């Protein structure tokens, strides 16, 4: 039969057929700029979501213990690296919704970061305490940097890991009261600069979005620790010290989280510890500008990308509420009750909407930031963190 077709015709037919095949096998072309990952903490899965059409594109399973999981993105925003509590890093493909690679790298981990050149993944570990560097392509181990021994006689737990320009990473040591900056420009031979005396029990940290400042929140004292990485020789200094001013500290049922979204324009917005307040500081001088009273212990204090409003969620037992602070008037303008156990919030890239995860109602709630009305809700299994792919292009995220 093939012999009946002239040679040229046969080639053309084969070509057409293979084109047809390719067209039906490949998913339609699309970008990743409006995609995101939602952690489903109890079932060890993540959902890939589209934040333009507010829908789920699929679920990726088998990611292990995702209590306290966090995510960073490859700089082409195609891959998400998911850091699980069980010490595993899972690389997932947002387009094919496949688990591409998974490495178990520690027994207890808290998060990670990606280098400014996009080539190195850093994992911050509780057990064994320290930082490990991996090749972003294949997750091969590049270097192991144990933390200095802490008060408990073991390498300190690492908190607050954030990327800085020049392939550097900054982090704090919960058990050793120290801020470290790791230069990974030669990732197999990283160089460590230590800043001891950084304040009692740093619990988390953040880098400003220009990568200049690293701030560590302190559990053991009222204040934060600041490193100006343009002037490292000046060392670490205390800012917002004594913010509780002798008030009785209230119990903290969940530790707050810090990240670069706390800083917008001229202000930084930070959770007070043991005080039901959001601290507002000048983002250059770091002097306190105001303390805005809120209804509970703040956990996430996130500025809208515009910087006009700041959204706050709370620790147990107030974790069913979210408050919105108006920045110019420094007042809470709205208290929302979007669902039980609101664990996380994430703005779209330009902040037209915010996505909230409600763990105990198994749902995601999308709220319009202009009207504060709910746009839609989506089902999710005990969702916690929500991470949108715009983070791929932002320092300190």
């Amino acid at each position, binding site marked *: 039969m093939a012999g009946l077709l002239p040679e040229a015709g046969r080639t053309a037919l084969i070509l057409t057929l293979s084109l047809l095949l390719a067209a039906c096998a490949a998913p339609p072309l699309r970008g990743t700029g409006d995609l995101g990952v939602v952690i489903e903490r109890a079932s060890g899965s993540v959902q890939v979501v589209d934040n333009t059409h507010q829908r789920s594109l699929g679920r990726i399973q088998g990611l292990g213990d995702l209590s306290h999981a966090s995510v960073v993105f490859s700089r082409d925003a195609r891959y998400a690296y998911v850091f699980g509590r*069980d010490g595993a890093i899972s690389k997932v493909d947002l387009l094919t919704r496949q688990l591409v690679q998974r490495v178990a790298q520690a027994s*207890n981990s808290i998060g990670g970061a990606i280098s400014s050149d996009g080539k190195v993944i850093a994992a911050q570990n509780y057990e064994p305490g320290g930082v490990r560097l991996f090749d972003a392509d294949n997750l091969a181990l590049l270097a192991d940097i144990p933390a200095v021994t802490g008060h408990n006689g073991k390498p300190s737990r690492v908190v607050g890991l954030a990327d800085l320009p020049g392939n550097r990473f900054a982090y704090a040591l919960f058990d050793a009261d120290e801020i470290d900056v790791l230069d990974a420009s030669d990732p197999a031979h990283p160089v460590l600069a230590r800043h001891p005396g950084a304040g009692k029990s740093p619990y988390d940290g953040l880098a400003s979005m220009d990568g200049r400042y690293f701030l560590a929140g302190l559990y053991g004292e009222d204040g934060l620790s600041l490193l100006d990485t343009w002037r490292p020789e000046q060392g670490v200094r205390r800012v917002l010290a004594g913010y509780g001013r002798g008030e009785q500290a209230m119990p903290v049922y969940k530790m707050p989280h810090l990240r670069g979204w706390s800083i917008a324009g001229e202000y930084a917005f930070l959770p007070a510890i043991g005080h039901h307040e959001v601290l507002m500081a000048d983002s250059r001088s770091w002097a306190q500008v105001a303390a805005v009273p809120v209804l509970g212990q703040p956990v996430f204090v996130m500025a809208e990308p515009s910087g006009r409003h700041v959204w706050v969620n709370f620790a147990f037992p107030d974790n069913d509420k979210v408050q919105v602070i108006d920045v110019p008037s420094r007042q809470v303008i709205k208290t929302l009750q979007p669902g039980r156990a609101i664990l996380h919030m994430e703005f779209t890239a330009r902040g037209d909407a915010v996505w909230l995860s409600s763990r105990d109602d198994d749902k995601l709630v999308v709220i319009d930031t202009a009207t504060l009305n709910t746009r839609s809700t989506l089902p999710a299994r005990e969702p916690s963190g929500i991470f949108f792919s715009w983070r791929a292009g932002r320092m300190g995220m």
Partner: protein
Amino acid sequence: MDSGPVSRLLAALLACGLVLPAMAAPAAPAEPRASQLLQLLHNDCGACHGLTFRGGLGSPLTPEALQGKPDDSLAATILNGRPGTPMPPWRPFLDEEEAKWLVYYLKQGARP
């Protein structure tokens, strides 16, 4: 919430009665309180101690980690917190019997 965790727990209590006769099993709270407590344990305690209690900012609460530590003092830690550390007092949300029950449950190897 279904009674799955509670019946599993009861089974664990029974089993342990045979293995560890010296340890008196505290009475399980009535439903729905028992389920609420287990949810609190996994979600809210788990936020610091890890969903599987292998530790985080809070110390591990696995049977191995708690072995040899007196039940009463562990229950007191839960109720009163541990000043100077991030362990907060849970007395506003738990009574003494409930705290002891949680200690017992943790020592049996709580499962999420």
